[in-house]
Structures are given as C-alpha cells and as structure tokens.
C-alpha cells in the first residue's frame, strides 16, 4: 500500500536525493522484522537474561537465610563453596550422571527408533505406548520407582524374593535406595526411562526423512545391512542425533525431581548432583547456592560449546 502511494505523494526527485530524503522510511523498513521478533526478544530478556543477571548478582552478595541482602560478599560465597567437603564428590557424580544417562539413552534410542521405523503389526499402538513415560510427570515416575524399591514390600523386592534372588526383606540388599552406589544406579535407570521417548522420536523423525531410493541404490551396489546402517542411516540422521544429544545433556544435567523424590541427595550428600546440592544449599545459604548456580550455568554453556565445536555443528545443520 505504501509503495503504491509513493509516486503521487513524493515529488519527483533524483534517486540520490530520494534516498537521502527518506531515512525514516528506510529505518522503518529495516526495523519492520522487530515487530515480529520483538515480543520474543522481550520475553527472552525477561525470563532468561534478567534471571542470569540476578543470579550473578546474588552470588556476590551476603544474604541472610530469610532472603535479606546484608551487603556485598565479594567472592566469599565462592570461597565457602569450594571449601565444602562434599563439593568434589558432587561434581564427579554430576559428570557420571550426565554422561552415563545420556550415553545409555542415545544407544537404546537408536535401536528403538530403528524398530519403530520398521513396519510391524501394532506399530501404531507401540508408538503411542512409548509416549507414556514422557507424558507422565517425572516426579510421579520417580515416586513409583521409589515405592517399587521399598526394602519392606516394594514390588521389585517381592519379585526378587519370590525367584529366590533376595534372601530377606528389610536387609541391606533389599534397600536399593539406602546404599549410595545402587541408589545412583537406580536413579540413572529412571532418568534413562524418562529420556527415551523424546530421543527416540527425534531419531525416528530423522529416519523417516531418509529417502528410500538411497537404500535401493546401495542395495543394488551390494551393500550389507550393517554397511547400509553405518554408511547411510547414521550419517543421514546425524543432525537428529546431535540435537537429541544436546537437549538430553542439558535436561539430564539440570534434572532435579528424580533425585529429589528418590533420595533427596542422601545419605548425607552422597547421591547429590550439582543441581540438587544447589537446592539443598539454598535452604539456608542463599549466596553460596547462587555461586553454585553460576558455576552450573557456566558448565552447561561450556559443555554445549565444546560439544558443538567437536561435532562441527555448523556444517551439519546449515
């Protein structure tokens, strides 16, 4: 509409002066996309950037347990944090937790995606069923597992007892969540269980985008099944694998409800990851907890950057 009005509204002038004479119009045209992305930018500033600023600010303040700022703390919060005897264990556990859960999830998801891509009777039902762990609340899933592992009458122990693998209820062997190592292992199982649907669907959509002709051509050339998989399937779903892995890393690293509902990070802090440890600290030591948040935040960013770098993300996704 504007352009159709232009010839009549504007006096005839040379191209040069016309360009000089309408800087505001040019600005508006350039800024036009802002009207569309503006709301998103404002949202990002308010819900993402602002909290980051407040987080960094809090980590440098002395804050009473009831939330009152008592002045600057300098880097004292960080010094106390690094003085916590539990911290090194917590960090190591965070690495084991994240790497372990994501690696196992991705391997199983690759298999599941392949299965769900094949035609078989009942595929539709099976695909729907896979959504269930994703659709139900993580907290609920964690609670169900906690009850199933109860040393006195949990269903897992009842089954193990019935088949003769477990000698007595209420024994140390039956108390899966009471021993730090087995508790962590079980919680990782739960984390894999709830991460599977998303990863599988991400990979499945990748699989479905591979044109059948490529396989046909390779088959005519005499490629084996394994060759087809490693030579065509994997390279072609690589972008899907990258994205799924990345999102899983961030999710699992930040995972809170599973650990909180199953062990609360205990006994002591021996099943805490840096996310739950941060929450435990927050109850009384807000500044120190904010300091750990800053470190967590930095870690996520570093992990993501390193990962993207290592996988030549740009070439893959562009």
């Amino acid at each position, binding site marked *: 509409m504007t352009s159709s009005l232009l010839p009549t509204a504007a006096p005839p002038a040379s191209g040069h002066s016309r360009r000089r004479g309408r800087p505001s119009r040019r600005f508006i045209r350039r800024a036009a996309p802002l009207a569309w992305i503006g709301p998103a930018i404002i949202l990002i500033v308010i819900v993402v950037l602002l909290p980051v600023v407040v987080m960094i600010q809090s980590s440098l303040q002395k804050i*009473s*347990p*009831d*939330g*009152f700022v008592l002045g600057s703390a300098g880097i004292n919060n960080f010094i106390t944090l690094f003085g916590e*005897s539990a911290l090194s264990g917590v960090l190591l556990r965070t690495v084991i937790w994240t790497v372990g859960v994501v690696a196992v999830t991705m391997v199983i998801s690759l298999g599941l995606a392949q299965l769900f891509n094949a035609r078989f009777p009942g595929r539709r039902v099976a695909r729907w069923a896979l959504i269930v762990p994703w659709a139900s609340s993580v907290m609920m899933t964690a609670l169900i597992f906690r009850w199933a592992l109860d*040393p*006195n009458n949990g269903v897992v122990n009842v089954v193990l007892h019935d088949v003769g693998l477990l000698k*007595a209820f*209420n*024994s*140390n062997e*039956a*108390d899966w*969540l*009471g*021993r730090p190592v087995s*508790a962590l292992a079980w919680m990782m199982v739960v984390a894999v269980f709830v991460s599977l649907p998303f990863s599988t669907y991400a990979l499945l959509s990748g699989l479905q985008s591979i044109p059948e002709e490529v396989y046909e051509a390779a088959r005519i050339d005499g490629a084996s099944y394994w060759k087809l998989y490693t030579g065509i399937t994997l390279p072609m779903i690589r972008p899907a694998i990258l994205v799924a892995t990345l999102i899983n890393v961030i999710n699992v690293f930040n995972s809170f409800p599973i650990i909180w509902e199953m*062990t*609360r*990070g*205990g*006994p*002591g*802090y*021996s099943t805490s990851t840096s996310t739950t440890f941060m929450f*435990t600290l927050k*109850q*009384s*030591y*807000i500044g120190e907890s904010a300091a750990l948040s800053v470190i967590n935040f930095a870690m996520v960013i570093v992990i993501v950057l390193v990962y993207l770098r290592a996988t030549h993300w740009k070439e893959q996704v562009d």
Partner: protein
Amino acid sequence: MKRRIWGAAAMAVAGALALAACSTGATPSASKPVTLKLVVADYGTGPSSTSSTYWQGIATAFHKKNPSISVKVTAINWNDFDTQVQTMVQNKQYPDITEGDYFSTYAQEGLLYSAKQVLSDPGNLLPAFKNQGTYQGTQYGLPFTTSSRTLFYNKKLFTQARISSAPTTWADVQSDAAKITGLGKIGFGLPLGAEEAQAESLLWMLGNGGNYQTSSGKYDIDSAANIQTFEFLTKLVNAGDTEPNPATKDRTPLWQQFAQGQIGMINASPALVPIIKTAGVLTDSDWTSVPIAGKNGALTKTLGVCDNVAAFKSNGHEAQIKKFLDFAYQDKYQIQFDKEYDLLPATSTAAKALESDAIFGPFLKALPNSVQYPSDTAWPQLKTKIQQTIGTTLTSDPKSVLGQLQQAANAG
C-alpha cells in the same frame, strides 16, 4: 455445523464472563474485607485426617462471627514445610500466620509481631516453651501444640522373643533388638534421615549425658560423649539390629512400619498413637510406651518439642490476626487438636482441662521439665545441616561428621 457450535460456545463463555463481572461488581463493600493467609504444617496421615480440615473448621466459624475477615488455609506436609515457608519468606511473599516450625531468624529480621501484639493473653501460653520463641527478651513464637518423646515397643514381638521387661539401658536395647531381628522383624527403628534426624540424635545424646549445647548455651556437638553415642549407634546398625541404612530413613514411614507390627522398638511422640489406630494391626494391649532408654538407665528428662504460631508483619493485618488468634487459641480448639492428633496442648487452661486424662496426663506432667532444642539464631541453619548429614556418622567417622557440624555452628 461445527462453526455454529463454536459460536454458541463462545457466546456462552462471553455471557459467563459478563455475569461474573456483574457479580463481582455488585459485591457490597463491607468494611474492607481482608483475607488472612494461614500456612500450617499437616499433622494428618492422609486425606481423612489432614490438618486443613481442622483449620478450615476454625476459619469458617471465625468468618461467621467476623464477616469482613476471611482466612485462606494452606496445609503443607511436614517434609516440605520448612522449605516452602522459607521459600515464601525468601521471595518476600509473606504469609500472615504460620503454624509449624518456627525460626528465631524471622524475629531477628524483624518480620514478626510479638506475642503481646497478636494475642490478648500471651500469659496463658505454657511457660515451659516461652524461651524457645523468645528473641532478645520478647516472645515472638507462640507455642500452639507440644509433645514429648517416649520409647514405644511392640509387646507382642517382645513376648514372642521371650523378653520379659521393658528396655531401660542401651545394653537392653541392643540385646532386645537382636532378639527381635531374629524373628525376621526390625529390632529398633532409627530414623536418622532428613525428616527429623535432629530429634532422634538428641534423644540418644541425652542418654549419654550429651546435648547439642552445654548447659550454658555453647554449642558442643562434637563432645566426647556425643562421639561415643554415635559409635554405639554404629555398632547397633552394623549388627543388623535396626532397619538398613538409617541415614536414609525418615520418621513418618518408620512410624507407619511400627504401626504395621514390623518394628520392635522406636522413639516417638504420642502422635504415633493415631497412626497405630488407623493401621488397625496392633490392639491397645499389643504396644506400650515407656521412658526413653539411656546408656545406664532410662531418661528422667525427655525431649519436649513445641510447634509455634508466628504472625508476620509485612501485610499489616495486626488487628485481624489478633482477632483470629484469640479465636483459634480457645480451649475447645486446643483440645480438639490434641484429641485429633494425640498431641499436647500449649496453653495452661487447656493443659488444666486435660490434666486428669488417662493418655495425656502423664505426658503433661513431664512437659515442664523437658529438654528443648537450642533457640538461638544459629539453630535454623544448623538444623538443616544436621538433618542432612548427621546420619552419615553411621557410615563414616562420627568424630569428623560431628566436627563439621560443630564448625558450622561456630560459623553461624
């Protein structure tokens, strides 16, 4: 067809909105209605006994008498109460009144009305618990309900294990627990998980003449007596005489297991009684409660715990809070609460009314000279640390765990 249905639906929604707008607009503006936010801990064991029913009853009766004041009740389960209230306070979304754990730091920060400001007769609150809620000479925490701890044991299991008398010493506890473990049950229920590890620990410390503080109020967590106490507990646990991994076991589930007849002995408050009754497994003659066992003999002074009401200043509802608290502290509501949860009253008049009661009488008598938690401002922070870590004395060196807690106490 479809479009018409949607159209009708949209009209209906619009109509409803308009009606709603009318009705809110038409509300008569009676002397500025105020809504008090009341946040309480849930003492119930399920939906049928939730504390929100008790408080809603008071709130409704109160609202009938004072139409301009409504009370919005939020009940939070004990496990999350501290965290959630602390989060509200940290985020400056203050409730008007809380009932449950109370922290002296709230008084220190100047967040609270004093007892005098929000209760007509603060002198009626049990004097034994006055110190707990007092900060710099002024009482801010108003005891609402109290309890004391005793040792409950399952008489049926004791008979089966051929134990003839109640345990009074640690040696008794150990040998009795071993015999009950022999029956395939849990000998002693030891809740050293995060829910209330500070209580269980103190009960055992008292048995060896220890405490968190010296009699002059200085923290002495890693005293020789306390270290010895946890060394004994480690021995008890390693012998298999308790549930496995006590550092991860909470009070509520263990009380429930006792009520199911799965546990021989457990330290508990009278609040265990309704749990036993609801479970319906043990009859009244199957269990009893006795003074808590100590190293060389039963305790003469037990742990007395009170849960407090705190009234927050920030919403400026002083007059309304006072009206409500005067109403809620009536004897009939005190007694109703105690009967519902088998806890003890916190006012002198209600205590007097229950003096001759068969169940409450003996507990009430023991209350005035009970031992209590520290009440200084370092305690709230320290308590969360104790809850999280003191159970690990059983699997690592008690001396270093208690030493770290002592360090935290010194720093706070």
